[in-house]
């Protein structure tokens, strides 16, 4: 039953505030209700009113009516404090599962009013607060625990304010179409002994001088020493002798090395070793089903590897590229 209501509410919300990268907050998108403090305030107002009635005290009536009026005025102020903001999702940080992923969101005042103490959060225990003066543009990161590998969609962002009196809460739930790429959680493990790939199948040749590997047609610039002169006498074909040098000392991080572990564990182990290699400034290659990345190093290489790990077995994200806000 609960999920039914939740689903229905979700659909209703999707219609009312459809997902978009940029959202302007207006009366269609802002909800406003008293807070618990607000209800308490109403109670106090009623108590003052009854005191005024019983003591027939005109000034106490004034105070009671003042409290009521203040509440009404507060509705307008609380609303105005949130309305007129334009919310844009900028980008998301890339983190591992179990870390806090920060989505950077830009708030801009469009209507020429200050906005005080705007609270943004996905989870009520991780709130980012921001204040803007009139015509200001500000970016703020809102953090959330990354719970799942791959493309992570945080759902609707809650933007709320209790300012100025805390009697009312104006809020909205916006879906900024944001998504973040979440890498697997790195888990330390010993690297299996066979990791230095020396078997034939694991070798990749690079042109060298030690072992003769074959012939190929001559290309200008090939050294004269390497031309297969004997063959030239026989067939008039100018061929170059090829030699190869083994690159066995380079590191291959392979899916198969962690046989016996589950898929997520394997990804975590590989992720850990990618980071380790990068830290120790060593070249490393990655081989997982369907993807092979040549050994290399550097931040770009690391990003490629981690992305490959993150997206292993993940379907294409639900949004079309270009519309999404994150950078894959």
């Amino acid at each position, binding site marked *: 039953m609960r999920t039914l209501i939740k689903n229905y509410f979700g659909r209703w919300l999707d219609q009312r505030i459809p997902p978009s990268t940029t959202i302007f907050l207006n009366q269609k998108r802002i909800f406003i209700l008293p807070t618990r403090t607000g209800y308490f305030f109403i109670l*106090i107002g009623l108590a*003052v009113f*009854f005191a005024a009635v019983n003591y*027939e*005290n*005109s000034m106490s009536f004034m105070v009671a009516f003042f409290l009521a009026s203040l509440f009404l005025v507060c509705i307008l102020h609380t609303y105005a404090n949130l309305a007129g903001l334009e919310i844009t999702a900028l980008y998301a940080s890339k983190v591992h599962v179990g870390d806090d992923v920060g989505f950077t969101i830009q708030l801009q005042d469009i209507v020429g009013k200050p906005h005080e103490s705007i609270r943004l959060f996905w989870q009520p225990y991780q709130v980012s*607060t921001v*204040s803007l*003066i009139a015509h200001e543009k500000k970016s703020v990161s809102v953090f959330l625990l990354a719970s799942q590998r791959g493309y992570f969609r945080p759902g609707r962002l809650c933007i709320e304010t209790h300012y100025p009196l805390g009697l009312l809460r104006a809020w909205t739930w916006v879906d900024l179409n944001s998504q973040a790429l979440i890498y697997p959680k790195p888990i330390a493990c010993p690297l299996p002994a066979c990791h230095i790939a020396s078997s034939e199948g694991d070798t990749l040749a690079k042109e060298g001088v030690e072992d003769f590997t074959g012939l190929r047609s001559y290309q200008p610039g090939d050294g004269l020493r390497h031309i297969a002169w004997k063959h030239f006498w026989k067939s008039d074909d100018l061929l170059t002798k090829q030699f190869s040098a083994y690159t066995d000392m380079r590191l291959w991080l392979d899916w198969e090395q962690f046989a016996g572990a589950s898929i997520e564990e394997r990804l975590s182990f590989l992720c850990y070793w990618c980071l380790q290699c990068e830290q120790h400034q060593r070249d490393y290659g990655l081989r997982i089903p369907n993807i092979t990345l040549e050994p290399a190093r550097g931040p770009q290489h690391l990003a490629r590897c981690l992305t490959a790990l993150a997206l292993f077995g993940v379907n294409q994200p639900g949004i079309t590229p270009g519309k999404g806000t994150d950078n894959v």
Partner: protein
Amino acid sequence: MFRQKSKPSSQSGKTHNQRTIAVASIPRTSLIWLFTTQALVLLPHLLRIPYWVGILAVVCGCWRIMIFNGRWSYPARWLKALLVIGAVTGTFLNYGTIVGLEAGVVLLLCTFLLKLLEMKNQRDAYLVVFLSYFVIVTQLLYSQAIPSAAYTFFTLVVITSALVGLHQQQGTLELKKTLRKGAVMMLQAVPLMVLLFIFIPRLGPIWSVELPSQKARSGVSDQMTPGDIAELSKSDALAFRATFTDTIPPQNQLYWRGIVLSELMGRTWRQASRELTLAGRTGQDLKLSGNPLITWRDQFQRWPNAVKKQGQALNYTVILEPTQQNWLYALAVPQISNVDIGVTRDFTLIAREPVRLRQQYKVRSYPSSLVDVELPHWLRRQNVQLSAFGNPKTRTFAQQLWDDVEQKPQLYIDRILQYFNRQPFYYTLKPPTLGFNSVDEFLFTSRRGFCAHYASTFVYLMRIAGIPARVIAGYQGGERNTTNNYVQVRQFDAHAWAEVWLEDKGWVRVDPTASVAPERIQDGLEAALAEEGSFLEDTPLSPIRFKHIGWINRLRLEWDMLEYRWQRFVLNYNQDQQMEFFNQLFGTFSWYKLALALGGGLGAIIIMLGVWIIFRRQPIKYDPATRLYLKFCQWGRKQGCQRLTGETPIHYLQRLQQHVPYYSAWAQRVTDNFVTLQYNPDFEEGESLYQKELVLLKKLVRHPVKSPR
């Protein structure tokens, strides 16, 4: 392209994550606000409450500051319990109870103060703020005068600001900004408040409550010993105001009757029937040996033969300050149509309950009517009663006089008044104390006295001759405000005079004081005491003493009028007044019309406020250099060369130079200067280099320089 005015660095771009919001602690700014609120709310109470509450306030305040500084910790639970028990015990010792209004207020204040030592998170802060609203209301039960109301509204602004402060982003210490927000919200709430005040239907009290007790009863008391009224005359406090619908009668006709004292016990005059004081509570028609003493209905029907209505009626409204007494004041032979006010057989007014709150009542008086032309026997007996002993000299004197005038009452009266007038009698606020035969002493030896002495002596003399006579206590005269048609009567206008019953005339007012000090009746107490200089001697700063200084007096009168209006239209706006107003406004009253007026008014005000609050835009604030440059652009526009939107300063300069070549060099300098200020990273706003350059730019922009090509 212009950079906007940069914000104070403490705030700009600062965001922070709170892992926990369940217990948000109270930031420093809020604490300052809460302290201010408490101090302001407590201040007006301090004069009234026991001194130890003040000490408690200081202790709690200091403790809280120490907690904030991290030097002390929050008090232990046993200490808190001890403090609470101490506060309750203290209250009990002071008031003998812990449930009454006064004791309740003190306990509320203690709770309010002790909360300081317990205030850990935002929720506690809310509680303190909301308690403040309540403490304010308790203060209003004691005083609703204009200064008190103004103070209350100032306090409300501070409380509202404290709430704003609680919700501002932590770390911002902008008290002025917070106060401004609070004040703006307060001002915006005022029109709504006024509307609600006028149109929300008032109810009668739902259950009975204890009203704040005054220190002392004020006004004329129910018994009078000569000298009592002199005490009253030292006060310039307001007794009541009376607004006449037509013209105000002449000053010497303004005898505001309060109570009739016809029983003499020793030196003290009393009401003939003590039960009259309690009559209100019994609520029934009180009777004395079969004769009704009081009626709650029209007295002209009740006692058809007692009053012969004559002459013009006077219509007026009295707003009486609280007296804690039952009787009300009115001119002779009042008629009233108010279920809560009765008329006594002596034709004075009496309220069911002692007047604890300011009370307003409408009266119609027939001053020239004849009363008791046929005096019932029981009344005659009451008003000739006299003890057979004491004051032998007076008795001989009276007997002789009575025989001299051949027992003609009118002549007898005239002779006595003459006696007062011709012999060296003095009207004074400082009469000597009199001994056992007080009338003898007064009449033949001291001859110094106040109105009460003259009135009681006169009635004594009448009764010796067997003429029915009685003392009337009340007020005489008052300060007239002819533009607004009201009379303001103060405590020092308290007066006592006599009423004598004469054949065919009934009760006739005789004021022996008028024979001694006629200026008292014509011009009031101040004139009568001019020689003695004892008028308001104990209150040297009373504004009434400065009547002769023109502007002070004008100011005082203006203030009085303001206070009068405040009372009449604001404080006395009760159920009846409201109905009257509705009837005036709507023609005939109906709930439908009321709802329409209330709803329509609320809607209109809220829409206006909404437009103001939601749609008002603030102009973009530029930094000083840009402001100057824009001034320069304005100059350019006047020359006929307007800067286009998005046009760079350099490009604009080129166009401008072509347009007004004479100013070419000057425009070049201005632009260079501006570009330096704006884009050169060495020039940071606020630094001395920047400031110097800015001053230069200011000078340049102000004086366009023409130069030869």
